[in-house]
């Protein structure tokens, strides 16, 4: 089983907060993006690979491949940042037996189905229900844009 240094829900995936803040705070050498559509999008796959900081390998997997990758043997000095766009991916990972102690919610953009959840996070009713299920399964969920922000437990935002 691979060890995950940081797991984050953020639909902009690799961007400033991730590269300029988190990657400095928790040194990582692999970014694992689990997403259903991205791995088959040749253009975007290349964009993400090219925009990672130097020395960081970007691995793009769909859900099934992502699980088997994470279940594979841990390599020494391997420090993985797991990025997903939506909470459902996290729930699927937990359900398939990948233990995740803590997940950081970074940002989810607004769209027609979503309403403002907290600051820069918009979420639909389904997604909020998914947050709740993840917490019930014993995974700690916090909202935290950058490392210097105080992490806010998601329960307190949901119950407001």
């Amino acid at each position: 089983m691979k060890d995950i240094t940081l797991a984050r829900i953020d639909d902009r995936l690799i961007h400033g907060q991730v590269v300029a803040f988190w990657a400095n705070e928790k040194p990582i050498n692999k970014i694992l993006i689990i997403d259903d559509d991205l791995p088959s999008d040749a253009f975007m796959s290349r964009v993400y690979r090219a925009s990672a900081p130097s020395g960081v390998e970007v691995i793009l997997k769909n859900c099934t491949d992502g699980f088997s990758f994470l279940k594979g043997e841990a390599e020494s000095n391997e420090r993985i940042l797991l990025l997903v766009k939506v909470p459902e991916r996290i729930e699927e990972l937990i359900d398939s037996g990948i233990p995740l102690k803590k997940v950081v919610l970074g940002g989810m953009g607004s769209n027609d189905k979503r309403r403002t959840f907290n600051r820069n996070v918009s979420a639909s009713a389904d997604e909020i229900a998914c947050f709740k299920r993840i917490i019930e399964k014993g995974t700690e969920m916090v909202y935290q844009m950058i490392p210097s922000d105080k992490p806010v437990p998601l329960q307190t935002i949901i119950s407001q």
Partner: protein
Amino acid sequence: MTIIQAVLIALLYYMCNSTWGLGVGWWTLMRPLVSGFLTGIILGDPVAGTIAGAQINVLYLGWIGAGGALPSDIALAGVVGTAFAITGGIDANTAMALAVPVGLLGSVIWIVKMTLNTAYVRVAEKLAANGDTKRFWIADVALPQIMLFIFSFIPAFVLVYWGSEHIQSILQFMGDSVVGVLAVVGGMLPAVGIALTLKSIFKGQSVLFFFLGFLLVQYFGLDMISVGFLSAVLTLLYMQLAGLSTSKEGIRPEAFAHGEKRYVLLDKRTIFRSWLNWIMFNQANYNYERMQGTGFCHSMAPIIDRLYPNDREKRAERMKLQMQFFNTEPQWGACIIGLTAAFEEKKAQGYEDISDETIASTKAGLMGPLAGIGDTIDGGVITPLLLSLFIGMATNGNLLGPIAYLIVEASFMWSIYWFSYKLGYEKGSEAILAFLESGRINQLILGASIMGCTVLGALVGNFVTVSLGINIPVGTGELFNLQSQLLDTILPGSLPLLLTLGCYFLLKKGWSSVKTILLVVAVGLIGGLSGILA
């Protein structure tokens, strides 16, 4: 301070945060080096303003406001700190200690603005639904900026006007010894600023260059201009010797051979107006719900207006699509605006294969990666490098420091805005990808990191002040001063260097910047009060 001066300073603070900085206000006016200089002009002492602004700026060297997260309001810290320094007649170090809490206070204004600006998205939606490209500025610029003006002007005016009036009596009340301790604390704080900047560039090959910069100043007594030129030459030399600047891959030719014509339905004037709207107003209505969404739509307004001058419904459809959630680094991300302009032009020409989903997903896909690159280069390496260089020049109140910084920094940012937009519009998505894959970005980051480390090392000795105040009695009434008679003879500036590296290791271990600042303040207070530090 006269009321007029306080009004001007409060106006200056609004200008720093406003959308009227021609796209570079964030990088120039907002930096205490520049705002301190301008505050100094208003108060009739630009030299003192430059010195105070430069000192305060060292704490915020590596300050990045990424993705709507703002750790501290550096504009308020710079303007108010400098005003206190000049009107209170206090030295730059003490002003620095006073500026820190002001900066933390100011970040509240940012959060309030980001939250309340969402209201203007509703107004923008109404205008977009009417296809009203001509009056879109009301929602994207006028309303949010009037609100920002009120939220910025009033607190800054109150702080500066009443603060300056009472700063003298507060300092007198505290007494010389307490003010002296504040100066000790203020002299130590720049170590945190330098350490924070090192966090993003102090790795691999650049580590040695930090010590080189330190030694160039401490042992060889070079001034900052010499260090700047020398470090530029050394960086180029190093990269050539290490074979790091020779990769001539560049942009692959097939990216240019796309064969698609631009400037068919759009003319250069329209493209320029779209670009100008972007650089001026990308964050005029920055808000948590859509981030730069309305700013994006505003930059598309001239394009949409040009493509569909007599079709209100079509304009409404395009504006709604272009007002979705969007957030990137404005300079490097400008290629996405250019690319979208090209998409819109193609679509109006009747190319069926460009669907709205393609446009939306390309925007959403590219905005993150370009923000990552932009924040790293502009906020993480280039700006700290230029700031260090020109802050170093401004140490003794040399007005060339802030002025030259303003010119160089603004030119750099405008160039990126322009070339990025043109790359996106004229060459398309393949060219953007080719540029990302060309390796030039990593070369730029590495080169700027190496040079930045050298210059930062040089700054340590100039801006971090901490020295031992311990005297040991030797013989008949003579005192042996540990600082001047021992440490300075071995390695001058060794304590500032140790303090900076100490802060760096704490930050690296996961300490937050606020916690590190508090520790430095505590050490400064105890050391200053007990007389161990002077």
